[in-house]
């Protein structure tokens, strides 16, 4: 009985969480501008989404920015984590604590302070995309750093020493011995960086060129505006993003299951004994 109630609660919460997204998905396939009134089936919204130039530019811009900034953040954050791991307490204290600042700070504060520094003090031109790129890297790199550090701690350090003893140069040992061991952390850091960039509103809106929009800034502007065809085209966009996220989670789960099937089995056994 208790079990049934518990599961019913979980199911109810899941329905609440997904109801808005599902309703919007259903209405994205109609030509209705408001939720509530049912009209006929139509692909008009998807057509608008893929043919209107500014919508297409906005989607492409969001993706390019996310991948580009995630790449820079991953390189910086990974190098930083490896360097700090091998440096003394001093480096650890400085980089480690500065790294925490963007993590705990409110995004508006990060965005505002960075913008004042870059545009106000250094005179960077927003339309050069430099401030936008730096802003996104500031947002992402600390999380890459945080996802690489645990992998370094789990690493078997004697392997690196063995590589040196066998004649590898330090650089080669890092590349061939250390890097493969921390690779899972680097990959998940990169994925996390992309999702942070895609979800960001504040950093983008404070540092972007006036003519450039990401999904977040575009959606916020669209809610202030009154163009219905854009509003409903965004329903189509949200449906597509939802489907992509579901597919990615399914792929991740399947590959994850293969990798740690044994691990999971062991985990399940220990759970049973509880």
């Amino acid at each position, binding site marked *: 009985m208790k079990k049934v109630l518990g599961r019913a609660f979980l199911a109810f919460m899941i329905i609440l969480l997904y109801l808005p997204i599902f309703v919007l998905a259903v209405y994205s396939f109609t030509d209705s501008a408001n939720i509530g009134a049912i009209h006929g089936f139509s692909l008009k919204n998807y057509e608008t989404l893929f043919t209107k130039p500014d919508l297409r530019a906005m989607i492409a811009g969001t993706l390019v920015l996310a991948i580009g900034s995630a790449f820079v953040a991953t390189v910086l954050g990974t*190098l930083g984590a490896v*360097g700090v791991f091998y440096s003394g307490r001093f480096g650890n204290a400085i980089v480690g604590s500065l790294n925490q600042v963007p993590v705990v700070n409110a995004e508006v504060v990060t965005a505002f302070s960075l913008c004042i520094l870059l545009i106000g003090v250094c005179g960077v031109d927003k339309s050069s995309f430099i401030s936008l790129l730096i802003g996104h890297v*500031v947002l992402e790199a600390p999380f890459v750093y945080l996802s690489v550090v645990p992998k370094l701690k789990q690493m078997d350090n004697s392997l690196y020493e063995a590589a040196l003893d066998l004649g590898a140069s330090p650089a080669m040992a890092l590349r061939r011995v250390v890097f493969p061991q921390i690779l899972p952390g680097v990959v998940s850091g990169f994925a996390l960086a992309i999702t942070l960039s895609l979800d960001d509103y504040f950093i983008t809106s404070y540092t972007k060129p006036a003519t450039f929009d990401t999904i977040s800034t575009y959606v916020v502007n669209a809610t202030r505006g009154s163009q219905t065809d854009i509003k409903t085209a965004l329903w189509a966009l949200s449906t597509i993003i939802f489907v992509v996220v579901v597919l990615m989670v399914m792929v991740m789960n399947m590959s994850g299951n293969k990798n740690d099937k044994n691990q999971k089995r062991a985990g399940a056994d220990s759970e049973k004994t509880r």
Partner: protein
Amino acid sequence: MGKFRFQRSQLCIPYGLFLVCFVLAPLIVIIYYAFTNGEGQFTLGNLIGFFSSPNTIGTLAYSLGIAVATTCICLTLAYPIAYILARSSMKHKSVVLMVFVMPMWINFTLRITALKEILTMIEGNLAYHPFLNTLIGMTYDFLPFMILPIYTTLLKLDGSLLEAAADLGADTVQTFLKVTLPLSVPGIISGIVMVFLPSMTNYVVLDMLYNSTYIMGSLIGAYFSAYDWHNGSMIALILLVIILVFTLFTNRYADEDAGSSRGGVLGG
């Protein structure tokens, strides 16, 4: 001068410099702006101005109200979810957890748009219940961030402790209150850290739900648009102090991997 020798620790130099330039320097700049006026002279006027104006104090109170209420709602919803999930014997727990966390990866402005359409359909006009709508929006946005750390802590909980409590005569309620709940405090604290501050500052949620009352984040936005960097910096500084106090207070209890709870599932 000797030949340049490569050392592993030197790899952190680029990232270290990056952090100094784009994390430390901005903080110094806002401290400078917060305590100067338009002529560049030192002043406490911005600070006194903030605490003597009923408008800004009202904004602070309103944001604290929203943040406290959102955090409480998220906690009361997230704890049972995490608890039921962590203690259940379901085969596909990790899949169900994914279902709860997945909304995190859909752009939040699109999620709030979806919520707005539903709320408009139910209420007719969003302007009638601005505070309620904001709470719903914030909860909808931040709930996954509360579920994840609590779930992780509860999953790590040593089952033999619960058995020991039962063997020593504690009933289910006592076991929960005296064993499970205290041991899950680190997860709760991590969750609160993830939810409290964003709900004080994420003014986009209010904007999109047509709540025109200001929170602390909107003040920064307004000063920024008006090029009033001195007062804007003061607000940012006040938020930073709140964050600092919060972090110092919670560091004692928080989970080691609190910071990474945003990517807990990805990192798993």
